[in-house]
């Protein structure tokens, strides 16, 4: 769950951002989930992976905001 939902997006960003930087930047949309905000029982891995995406976006957005990314 975490490998696909969180690590998968991390790796996608890691490898796509250099290409986007080379062409002047661009826009990235990461699909999280309402389970990142409020969730239910038996969803710990899913909720953690989707909330992790929010942190990933918050930090990476600051890393690349001045480099052509919105």
């Amino acid at each position: 769950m975490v490998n696909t939902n969180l690590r998968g997006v991390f790796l996608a960003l890691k490898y796509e951002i250099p290409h986007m930087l080379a062409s002047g930047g661009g826009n990235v949309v990461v699909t999280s989930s309402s389970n990142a905000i409020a969730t239910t029982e038996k969803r710990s891995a899913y909720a953690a992976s989707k909330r992790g995406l929010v942190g990933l976006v918050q930090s990476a957005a600051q890393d690349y905001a001045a480099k052509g990314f919105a």
Partner: protein
Amino acid sequence: MNALIPGTTDTELVRRAAGMEHVPDAVWEALAKQWAKSHVPGLERMAKAEEIAAFALVLASDDHPYMTGAQMVVDGGKTAHGG
């Protein structure tokens, strides 16, 4: 770079995750409506994929350069609901 935060959306994936892929459509629709009544009060239905995609397009566009590091919640009020 932004995060899109969709609520529960009526897709094949959600139907499969609920173990409902082999039931008749009418049964799935009835159960989905029942679920939504308690989890998405007000609208009482899941999102259509197109209703989420519309906001993915907004975030992907070049029209909002000051929006970055943000979370766009499109969940029909699901997370506004406290109980």
